[in-house]
């Protein structure tokens, strides 16, 4: 995928790829609390049936998943586990934060043990509000994510720039800069031009 990395894909091909990606999302279910039941109702029940949207909710491991739905209260004890889960997923990866607790702490906004929003740990693509959100709301979130994927510049996403979290982008750019600096030091101070 060298062409994709450099963002030099013809536009029709990009659209084709994006359509394929948006309708074959493998979702990893990360159910933590009440929202997990509504997520189970959306993904597992015959009434809501998420597979008609082209979403497959049963990957065996985060290493096979494109999308993770974090649903429920994230405590400070759980936060490192979620960070690790996100790092195990292959690029390009997307995150839906489901429910008030995962968005911002929800009813536990003043609790000593709850992480107030998972966007402090990992970048989030779609926030689904509610306590808990109805299954229809989660399906709406999935559809929004699919629209987002369709309009995406694949090159940017492959390089890890399409992500919403500016902090993460900044961190990645910092890491890239360090790496480039290290490489250029090895090469005797000759600057390396990165072609975007």
């Amino acid at each position, binding site marked *: 995928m060298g062409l994709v990395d450099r963002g030099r894909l013809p536009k029709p091909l990009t659209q084709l790829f994006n359509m394929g990606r948006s309708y074959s999302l493998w979702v990893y279910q990360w159910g*933590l*609390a*009440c929202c997990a039941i509504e997520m189970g109702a959306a993904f597992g029940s*015959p009434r809501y049936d998420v597979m008609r949207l082209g979403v497959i909710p049963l990957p065996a491991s985060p290493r096979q998943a494109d999308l993770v739905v974090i649903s429920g*209260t994230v*405590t400070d004890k759980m936060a490192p586990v979620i960070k690790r889960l996100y790092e195990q997923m292959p690029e390009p990866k997307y995150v839906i934060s489901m429910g008030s607790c995962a968005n911002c702490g929800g*009813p536990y906004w*003043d*609790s*000593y043990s709850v992480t107030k929003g998972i966007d402090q740990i990992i970048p989030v693509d779609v926030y689904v509000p509610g306590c808990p959100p109805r299954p229809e709301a989660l399906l709406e979130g999935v559809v929004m994510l699919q629209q987002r994927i369709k309009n995406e510049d694949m090159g940017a996403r492959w390089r890890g720039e399409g992500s919403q979290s500016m902090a993460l982008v900044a961190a990645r750019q910092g890491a890239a800069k360090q790496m480039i600096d290290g490489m250029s030091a090895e090469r005797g101070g000759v600057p390396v031009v990165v072609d975007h």
Partner: protein
Amino acid sequence: MTLLGDRQQLSYIASQAADARVNLELETEGMTLNIGPQHPATHGTLRIIARLDGEQVVWVDPSCGYMHRGYEKLTEVRTYPQVTALVNRIDWLGSFANEVPFILAAEKLMGIEAPLRAQHIRTILFELSRIANVSLFLGDLGVQLGAITPVFMAFRDREYVLNLIEGATGGRFHPNFDRIGGLKDDLPAGWLDETRTVMKKLRRFCDEIEDLLFGNEIFQSRTRGIGVIPRDIALQYGMSGANLRASGVDWDLRRDQSLPMAWDKVDWKVWTHPDGDSFARCWVRLQEVRESTRIVEQLVDTIPAGPVMTKVPRIIKVPEGEAWVCTENPLGEMGYYVVSQGDLGPFRVKIRSASFNNMSITPWLLKGVYVPDIVTILASLYFILGDIDR
């Protein structure tokens, strides 16, 4: 004492050495198996560290706290009406049942009692939340043991109950409907007829599950005689609810204490099972769903007319004092010890939730079982993680 000859001694030593060599070759290395903290099939986070010898569990260390949200501390900075919104989320499958003991404790301190119609509606919603809770258990049980179909049936029929709860309260999951002195609203028109229809559907669901799952030979061989809890041990560990009744203890707080609720006005039965194994626990829960549908049907028929709210001041201040109220929730005994100092909010609330005690038996119960039985036992004990860690 007979002395062995040289020859005999040598052969004895040789046989000992051979035994030792065989033991060395057959010996399996111990392994530490980590289960959790999260699994795609669960809702909630519990970590279990198991030390295995071959296929057998040597010891187990359940590590909880991944869902600890600090309820007891949060109630100190909320007012009384706000606390119900919070405690809804302790046992998230039977939300309404969590509100009731707290509201009853506050009413006990204020010396008021809800009107008769409100008591009836409270009891109906309480039993509906029990049905919503345990019907998901019956479906989930199949998934844990490898049968995928029951969970679809459970989700299908559970939606009817959730529609009822939503129709009356406005919330599918967290109704927040109970008020000090009564209820927020009366029931909507046509709700009672709808309830009768849904209860018939739920009883059919119970029959289906009993045929499909409980009558299945694989299911029976995987649950019968697995994870037996004797009566004394269950009492020692402070277990409650269906787990205790499955060990042969005839104890149900709905019947055994008098509360301003409507359970004593209807005819129903407490089911027990003498075996105490995983099958008994599942079976007792199935019967309880049936009993709940019967309770709801009778209450719907006999519901009195009248107001649903007594006179309470606009700003609720609970007088100084302490009160303990517990009820028989879907998972077992749940109680609140409310300490009031005459403020807008409680001074201190101690929450006794059923799952913590029900789960505390796992180190004793899982010792010596085989690895696949861990799943069976944990599924049949049926705890909700928010109810353990609070």
